[in-house]
């Protein structure tokens, strides 16, 4: 093979290239020459470049069938962006992909061996998404002011660091993150990616810098599978984006997640493996938000008001990129739920929830569709929980706003009636230890404390512990309320609180009175069950319960 002439020409043209580039390649995998070159032998090192930098051919070869071909010269790895479509790599990326196709070099670079429930032989292993290299980071696109205007979670291209270059056409290419000559950071990266410094050079997710995932020093406990196989970093903060995302050959192509199924991405660390709280265990309770059933339905741009299939995944309530400290009002979401969309008290979709209940209303506050049937069917059968708490109702637990009257509530000394409560004041994990949120509980429906709704329950401090946490038991049972017959009904006749009271709100009656249809029946001859207030503190009940007819009974 006559390589000498070509080498001379290559040398002449490479005279402009700093000798340092060729010297660095020699020690790396991109040194494709047969004899491992000694860096001290400059003449031989030119051969290393020719594998990617096609040398200029010195002679013309006549094409015997085509007289006009002879004078043509190629620009093998330069490419005009004119006419290139999405999925057609341009510029330097074309050169990389001409070897990284699975034959000379790995086709999908950095193919992960992440653990997950992906079965070895599933027919839907790859989704054919469209025209892009779907499971790899996108390349060959213009990263300019227009793109930055459309996507505020990107860094302004004018302020990109010099180590992350765009090509001559202001496009992002393989060469923005990789320098094929230099392997000093590993994987031929242009910069060290500890704490995801390389990712965050372009990606500016709001709230990231103060979020738990960016700052946590938590390590793998050794249980189950290593969430960061092949990574040199040991803590969550150092792995940064790589805890959930995979740049090449991502298991879950949309959003380049490293595991299939949104909840698997989270449970890789939040199942007693890295994070302190074991969410997976919490969700295995009899009453739970079972995220595993959602599969792959979740779409970050979904709008529950406009219509979406009801589902719950981790990211419906949590924003893994956010979690920064902001001013905390009484009803603001917990730090782990900042930056999450919601449906406000009026029923409108909001991009960032200011109140915790707005997050819950994405599923529990919709008209016409509810994720679950209520445990107790009531006279006033409003199923939309958002409407149950509406401030125009006759009575309500103060979630949307403060309650108007304070005397009827008989709260325990540690609670003040001049406050607003949240969904998670009642709903949460029933276990003594474990994560506090409403992931799952032994008490249905995902309650923090026991709350019996069965008729003939024997009254005790623990039977209605949820109510007694705020409403003083002695005061309720033994006379401090307007209704003096609580002990008679609850203790003597063993009626549960829920027979008469609705824990959320009552549109028609004060005192959260909204009878349980299964326990409270209409009195014979009377049209329906009803409660009519009598004066400021009294009332009349028209109903039949435990065989006792109230037609009416007055207090």
């Amino acid at each position: 093979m006559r390589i000498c002439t070509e080498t001379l020409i290559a040398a002449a043209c490479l005279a402009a290239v700093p000798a340092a580039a060729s010297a660095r390649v020699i020690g790396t995998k991109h040194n494709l020459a047969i004899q491992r070159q000694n860096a001290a032998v400059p003449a031989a090192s030119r051969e290393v470049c020719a594998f990617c930098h096609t040398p200029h051919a010195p002679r013309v070869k006549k094409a015997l069938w085509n007289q006009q071909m002879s004078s043509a010269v190629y620009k093998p790895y330069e490419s005009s962006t004119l006419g290139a479509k999405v999925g057609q790599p341009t510029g330097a990326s074309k050169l990389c992909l001409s070897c990284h196709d699975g034959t000379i070099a790995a086709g999908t670079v950095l193919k992960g061996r992440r653990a997950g429930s992906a079965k070895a032989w599933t027919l839907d292993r790859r989704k054919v998404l469209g025209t892009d290299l779907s499971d790899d980071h996108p390349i060959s696109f213009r990263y300019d002011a227009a793109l930055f205007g459309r996507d505020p979670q990107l860094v302004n291209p004018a302020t990109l660091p010099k180590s992350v270059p765009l090509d001559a056409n202001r496009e992002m290419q393989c060469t923005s993150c990789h320098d094929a000559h230099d392997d000093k950071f590993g994987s031929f990266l242009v910069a060290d990616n500890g704490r995801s410094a390389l990712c965050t050079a372009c990606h500016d997710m709001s709230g990231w810098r103060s979020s738990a995932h960016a700052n946590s020093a938590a390590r793998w406990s050794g249980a189950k599978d290593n969430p960061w196989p092949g990574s040199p970093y040991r803590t969550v903060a150092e792995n940064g984006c790589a805890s959930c995302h995979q740049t090449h050959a991502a298991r879950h192509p949309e959003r380049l997640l490293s595991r299939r199924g949104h909840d698997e991405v989270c449970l890789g660390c939040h199942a007693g493996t890295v994070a302190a709280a074991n969410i997976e265990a919490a969700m295995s309770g009899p009453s739970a938000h079972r995220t595993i059933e959602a599969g792959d339905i979740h779409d970050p741009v979904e709008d529950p008001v406009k219509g979406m299939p009801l589902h719950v995944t981790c990211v419906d309530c949590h924003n893994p990129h956010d979690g920064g400290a902001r001013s905390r009002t009484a009803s603001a979401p917990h730090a782990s739920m900042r930056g999450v969309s919601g449906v406000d008290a009026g029923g409108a979709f909001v991009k960032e929830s200011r109140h915790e209940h707005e997050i819950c209303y994405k599923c529990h506050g919709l008209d016409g569709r509810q994720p679950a049937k209520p445990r107790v069917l009531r006279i006033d059968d409003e199923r939309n929980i958002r409407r149950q708490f509406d401030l125009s109702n006759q009575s309500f637990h103060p979630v949307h706003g403060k309650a108007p009257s304070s005397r009827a509530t008989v709260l325990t000394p540690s609670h003040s009636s001049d406050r607003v409560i949240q969904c998670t004041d009642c709903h949460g994990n029933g276990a003594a230890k474990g994560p506090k949120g409403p992931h799952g509980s032994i008490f249905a429906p995902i309650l923090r404390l026991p709350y019996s709704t069965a008729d003939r329950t024997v009254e005790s401090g623990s039977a209605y512990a949820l109510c007694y946490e705020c409403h003083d038991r002695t005061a309720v049972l033994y006379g401090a309320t307007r209704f003096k017959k609580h002990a008679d009904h609850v203790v003597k006749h063993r009626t549960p609180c829920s027979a008469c009271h609705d824990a959320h709100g009552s549109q028609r009656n004060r005192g959260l009175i909204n009878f349980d249809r299964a326990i409270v029946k209409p009195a014979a001859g009377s049209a329906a069950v009803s409660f009519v207030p009598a004066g400021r503190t009294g009332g009349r009940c028209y109903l039949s319960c435990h065989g006792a007819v109230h037609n009416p009974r007055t207090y």
Partner: protein
Amino acid sequence: MRARLCAISMAAAGAALACGCFGPDPAARAARSGARAEIVWPEPPDRARIRYVGSVESPADLGIETGVLSRAVRLITGRDDGRFVRPHAVAAGGGLLAVADPGAGGVHLFDTVRNSYAFVPGASGGSFGSPVGVAVWGENVFVSDSERNIVALIDRQGAAVREIGGGAGLRRPAGLALGEGGELYVADAGNHRICVFSIDGAMLRQFGGRGTGPGQFNFPTNLWYDGLRRRLFVADALNFRVQVFDPSGAFTGAFGEPGDRPGYLARPRGVATDSDGNVHVVDALFDAVQIFNPEGALLLGYGRRGADAGEFWLPAGIHAGSDDRIYVADSYNRRVQIFAYLH
């Protein structure tokens, strides 16, 4: 002085490049004229040697109707029914067109005899990680998986038969070719050698080794066996040449050198011979196919960078049928283009 010559030739080259890499391009001329003109290479007055026939992007292009079964296939493979993601290798025989698609993680089998389409995501050992080579021989379809380092044998319907080469220590097996008597040549790219297996999976012999001399390789990627002339062609990618062997592995000749002009090779990929023994070599960086005569002299080049008919974007594998139909896997245009070689 040399710099000035360099600049002048670059300017001339730029002018030449402006009108297409292989002379005024027939595809461009057809597009400009607006008429559905025939796309041939070379342009008149030279005698036409290659004619563009069509391209395959999905089963419908081959007249395979999508019935109930195919609707189920659509559900499994995703939105685009049978659409290629990144086709890398192509093989045809007996009415079957097989396309290895590492982007989709499997092999597409288009059977124009039974009028059926199947997408095969895996074989006996599991799903395909990186199916980059395919060969067809009667009822047998061979698929090389450069990630799992095996060659899978499946039948025309896609059912797995066996795996070959598991114990041979293959490292990134890529190109496949079928020799006489059902011998399977496998380009073991990572080990820089060619392995020969029997159809039962026994390794018969191997030859090669890393080097620049005759019979040595630096990442051999694609293979082609010319049954008529009993010659094996090997695309020796990083030696920028095509080497020719007899069936036993004895070296008989080579041609090619690196360069950026017609007649040189920049990133040679697929190689095939037509019925006259001319060697078609696909070049991924030129986005074209070059034809050499058996002595290695350049005859013609066809194709240029682009997405229209007769244009390529990082083309990969090539297959020349006995009917002189030439199939080229046009990977980043997500299609297989078909040309006719005119005697």
